[in-house]
């Protein structure tokens, strides 16, 4: 639906992530049932659905925090169904968490540096001084500035206000130069003001990357998403852009409760 | 090896097992509710035994009180005294540690263990003092067909089993129990509902400590009463709790009994490993069932 031509150039395949008949059972209860989804390179793909639809579970499957009961996950043309979590991250598939995930007692700069450090290849070198990491400071600062945290480089993460923690988390994620970012409810529990900050931020960083996000806030979804997949009871209920999905009677029934609540 | 011998050994294993069960039960209750690893549990077991001993034969000599606390009374008195000590420890010390890492509780109780053991080593023979107060009515032997079994040991088995399963029943099937479990899971909220969690915590600790004391009294007529009787036992009991699943009440009881049996049979087939077999099992269990046999994965 949403062919992004320039994305196709950057990567050989226009589909960066695909699940084929993915399934997850919890002791006789099927949380994800036969879900096949394709994510276009360079798009923002949102996942919505009522509580307990299986969104978080689906995410956990993608990042190997849970093992699928059946089906396949194809990332960048390769089957990653049975890869290790860290291995996936090294291939450029990075997730964020529903609760904010920073390293609380490190400064903002160090938070970003931890991400940058991985590509430097010195992380196992316990015999070298950590001063070798100073070469990353410039890049860390640049990344912080991208999310408007330039002035807070020396502040400990724990002391940052909520919205800025979110921003820092995104900065850390970007520092890894991810090709695909998975965001789980990036605006959950935020005030409207913080929501728009984060929405802007996502818009800003999406350039050249693909994002898959779980979101309850339909405003955010409407603003950001190119494609929306609606899950219900572990199955795909509908898929398409916002207009298609939000007018789908089945979605209105299951998600909004017949009248428009959005 | 004849089936009689195996049966006899299994029964002896069960005898050891009930002590494991009772101690690990107390430990599990305390860990479950307070998130404290009570290293002093072994010392409390020792204390229980000593209270029985002192109450029976030393009150007069030491304090000039002409009173003799017999075995049956000790079954009540010793757990109560150990429980009161538990209250003091919890109220005065452990209370300040709940927010901190587990290891501080472990360390504190380790310190308390050293103190208790040291104190008793100063006044008592480390090589053990016999407890003379075993009641006449239990002093015989029972002919089980395949062996003569001391009546007292049989009594200890039955008595402990009753205590263990009663405790389990209270915790799993009564309102008191559900309140305790709620207090474990979310103490703040439980308090906000109007339940006195600090009191519940204190009493639970006292109860766990009392169980150890009770086990000590039961052990006194079987083994020598010695200041170090709890020292090595405690490590084994830790292993039992871990195998059963940290915080799982039934897990603690059943694995205590089962490991007593395993240990008993190891003593027949490969005695040198008797004191280590539990640790082998613990490694295996943790490798294949990280949360223990009965524990829930987090």
């Amino acid at each position, binding site marked *: 639906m949403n062919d992004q031509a320039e994305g196709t150039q950057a990567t050989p395949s226009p589909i960066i992530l695909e699940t084929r008949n993915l399934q997850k059972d919890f002791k006789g209860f099927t949380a994800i049932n036969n879900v096949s989804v394709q994510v276009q390179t360079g798009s923002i793909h949102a996942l919505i659905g009522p509580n307990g639809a299986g969104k978080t579970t689906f995410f956990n499957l993608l990042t190997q925090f849970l093992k699928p009961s059946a089906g396949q996950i194809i990332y960048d043309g390769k089957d990653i169904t049975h890869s290790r979590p860290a291995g996936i*991250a090294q291939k450029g598939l990075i997730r964020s968490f529903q609760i904010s995930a920073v390293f609380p007692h490190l400064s903002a700069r160090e938070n970003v540096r931890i991400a940058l450090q991985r590509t430097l290849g010195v992380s196992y070198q316990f015999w070298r001084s950590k001063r070798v990491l100073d070469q990353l400071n410039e890049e860390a600062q640049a990344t912080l500035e991208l999310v408007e945290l330039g002035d807070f480089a020396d502040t400990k993460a724990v002391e940052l206000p909520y919205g800025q923690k979110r921003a820092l988390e995104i900065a850390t994620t970007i520092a890894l130069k991810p090709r695909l970012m998975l965001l789980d409810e990036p605006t959950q529990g935020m005030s409207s003001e913080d929501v728009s900050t984060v929405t802007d931020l996502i818009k800003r960083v999406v350039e050249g990357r693909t994002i898959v996000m779980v979101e309850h806030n339909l405003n955010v979804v409407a603003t950001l998403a190119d494609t929306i997949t609606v899950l219900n009871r572990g199955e795909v209920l509908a898929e398409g852009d916002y207009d298609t999905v939000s007018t789908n009677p089945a979605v209105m029934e299951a998600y909004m409760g017949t009248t428009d609540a959005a | 090896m004849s089936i009689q011998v195996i049966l006899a050994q299994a029964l002896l294993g069960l005898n050891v097992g009930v002590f494991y069960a009772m101690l690990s039960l107390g430990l599990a209750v305390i860990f479950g509710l307070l998130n404290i690893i009570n290293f002093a549990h072994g010392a409390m077991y020792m204390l229980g035994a000593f209270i029985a001993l002192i109450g029976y034969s030393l009150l007069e000599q030491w304090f000039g009180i002409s009173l003799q606390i017999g075995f049956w009374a000790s079954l009540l008195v010793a757990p109560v005294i150990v429980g009161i000590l538990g209250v003091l420890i919890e109220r005065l010390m452990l209370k300040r540690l709940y927010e901190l890492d587990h290891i501080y509780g472990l360390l504190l109780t380790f310190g308390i263990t050293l103190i208790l053991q040291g*104190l008793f*080593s100063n006044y008592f023979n480390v090589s053990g003092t016999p407890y003379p107060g075993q009641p006449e009515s239990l002093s015989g032997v029972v002919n089980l067909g395949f062996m003569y079994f001391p009546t007292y040991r049989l009594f200890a088995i039955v008595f402990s089993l009753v205590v263990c399963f009663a405790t389990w029943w209270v915790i799993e099937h009564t309102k008191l129990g559900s309140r305790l479990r709620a207090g474990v899971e979310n103490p703040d909220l439980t308090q906000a509902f109007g339940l006195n969690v600090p009191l519940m915590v204190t009493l639970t600790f006292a109860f766990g400590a009392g169980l150890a004391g009770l086990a000590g009294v039961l052990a006194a007529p079987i083994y020598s009463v010695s200041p170090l009787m709890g020292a090595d036992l405690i490590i084994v009991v830790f*292993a039992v709790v*871990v195998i059963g699943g940290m915080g799982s009440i039934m897990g603690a009881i059943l694995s205590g009994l089962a490991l007593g049996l395993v240990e008993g049979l190891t003593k027949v087939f490969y005695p040198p490993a008797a004191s280590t077999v539990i*640790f082998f099992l613990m490694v295996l269990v943790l490798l294949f069932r990280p949360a223990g046999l009965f524990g829930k994965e987090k």
Partner: protein
Amino acid sequence: MTNRILFILMLVAGLTAPLYAYPVFVMDLLCFALFACAFNLLLGYAGLLSFGHAAFFGGAAYITGYVTKEWGFTPLLGILAGAAFAMVLGAVFGFLAIRRQGIYFAMVTLALAQIIYFLALQMPFTGGENGLQGIPRGHLFGLIDLTDSNAMYYFVFAIFLVGFGIIYRTINSPFGEVLQAIRENESRALSLGYDVDHFKLLAFVISATLAGLAGATKAIIFQFASLTSAHWQTSGEVILMTLVGGLGTVFGPVVGAITVGALSHELSAFGSWVQVILGTIFVVCVLVFRRGIIGEIQRLASRKQG
């Protein structure tokens, strides 16, 4: 800053110790200090509580004792062999334990250590309860006679400094940074692409190796390898030393080892009262003195500045 001052203090104290103290005793303290530092690397910087470190300390001692006594290894080579053994053992323990968290981790390490203890008791070459006795001190580089107390002392002090240096560097290395990140937020570190288990394992192996180095050195000093070193109480003691000195501080374990070591030595004439006194100290430490000696000093220092 404080670290530099403390380091100079330690160096001076270490170099002059034989002038005013019984060298063998100081050597013993140095071994425990190194052991505690190694342990602290794991608990203080990687957040992993091992309750089985005695296995490395004691295990290495047996190996060192055996190779120097039976195979005629030189003392240095013997010590290296002991440390290498601890390294391998650490890799095995780590492989088995690293996936477990918190108290379970502690318990797996304890269980594994109990098995090593069992082997130390049962294997023929260890001498069972008698221990492995009569380990020769030998000559360092074939030249320096280590039966001389002073020569031995400076040899041990050098080993301590090397071990201490390795730990200090590890803490302040890129690897140390990742360790800290893992301790702060493990799943985030994982999602950033760090193989958390590998990092923990490496930290575990380094810690085990250095604990082994300490145990191996001790075997040469006392010409003795015994079950005591492998017993779980030794694992408990090293925790206590680390905490008394200050968990997660560079010098804390050194100070803690010296304090606890000196205390038990000075009080040994009091029989069981030693236990009572040590127990009381620990209770007091845990209740009111939780940062440990160095931790408290650092807090006071930073307060004055702030």
